[in-house]
């Protein structure tokens, strides 16, 4: 029920905008036309790369299924363990709160505290679909700079969390 409402709300906003735009052109309302000019520019920008990005993401999803990586989590430690959680995070999609249930699974499977927080960091900032959009909108230079600076920082956050939480019986609750 709530879902149907949300969907309709999204369409309402779009239809409302289109109606106002049509009216703007019919009655010569200049701000409306100018906003539509902006919108057209953004729309073209989006349509020229987003659909192609999703082709890449979809293919990635079938060739590199995250379930396969997930199987190995917990057994590996050291650099290999860190790499594995980062790769797993990169294969995900969605908002950060969607990563918490996965963090619970990692915890259950015996992943270290450090790796759980590295996972969250990588999930937030290195997901492949997001990197794609970032490259499209902000360019490869910005994306590379941001990623390369972020990576050591959230690995550091992982180490800090492990050091801090080691003797404080850390646990993740299932909701």
């Amino acid at each position, binding site marked *: 029920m709530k879902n149907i409402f949300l969907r309709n709300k*999204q369409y309402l*906003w*779009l239809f409302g905008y289109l109606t106002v735009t049509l009216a703007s052109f019919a009655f010569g309302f200049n701000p409306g036309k100018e*906003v*539509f000019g*902006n*919108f057209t520019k*953004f*729309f073209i*920008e*989006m349509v*020229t*790369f*987003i*659909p*192609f*990005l*999703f*082709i*890449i*993401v*979809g*293919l*990635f999803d*079938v*060739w590199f299924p995250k379930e396969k990586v997930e199987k190995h989590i917990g057994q590996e430690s050291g650099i290999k363990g860190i790499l594995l959680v980062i790769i797993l995070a990169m294969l995900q999609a969605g*908002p*950060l*709160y969607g990563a*918490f*249930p996965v*963090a*619970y699974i990692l915890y259950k499977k015996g992943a270290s505290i450090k790796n759980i*927080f590295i996972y969250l*960091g990588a999930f*937030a900032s290195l*997901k492949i*679909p*997001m990197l*794609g*959009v*970032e*490259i*499209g*909108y*902000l*360019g490869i*230079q*910005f994306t590379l*700079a*941001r990623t390369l*600076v*972020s990576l050591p*920082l*959230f690995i550091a*956050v992982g180490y800090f*969390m492990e050091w801090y939480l080691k003797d404080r019986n*850390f646990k993740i*609750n299932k*909701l």
Partner: protein
Amino acid sequence: MIDNAFIFIIVSILLTFVSFLLDRRKTMLGLKKGWKMFQNVAIPFLNILILVSLVLHVVPPSLIVRYLGAGSGWGGLAIAAIVGSITLIPGFISYPIASVLIKQGASYTTVATFMTTLMMVGVVTLPLEIKYFGRRVAILRNVLNFIAAIVIGLFVGLIL
């Protein structure tokens, strides 16, 4: 921007071609998955483009330069970090906003900080996070990431 689109088009065509040679069924499945994901984001994406078009019309670039530009200093950084921490904008949708901010004169430092807090710090989702990790850990994680976001912004600004 057009160059960027070219890269995406060429890479997607190449990948589809290679994938198709390797496994037809898998390729179709992948394309279908991609299309589904695209459908999920298309409407929210259009809506945010409308919103950005509107805001861009109302907010003059000079205002963005003053508060988020290179000369905005710690104030601009603070605005970017706090707004990014509080708002809950899906990552996908935040990129057009970031791109407009840069085009209108915001600095790389403020935009990188804004993007990073948006992704890594969640004040709105904190209650949920507390349920999973407990109060102390959830707050600590957010505070650490908030600091990390500012450091990331400063470094990205230095590099670019």
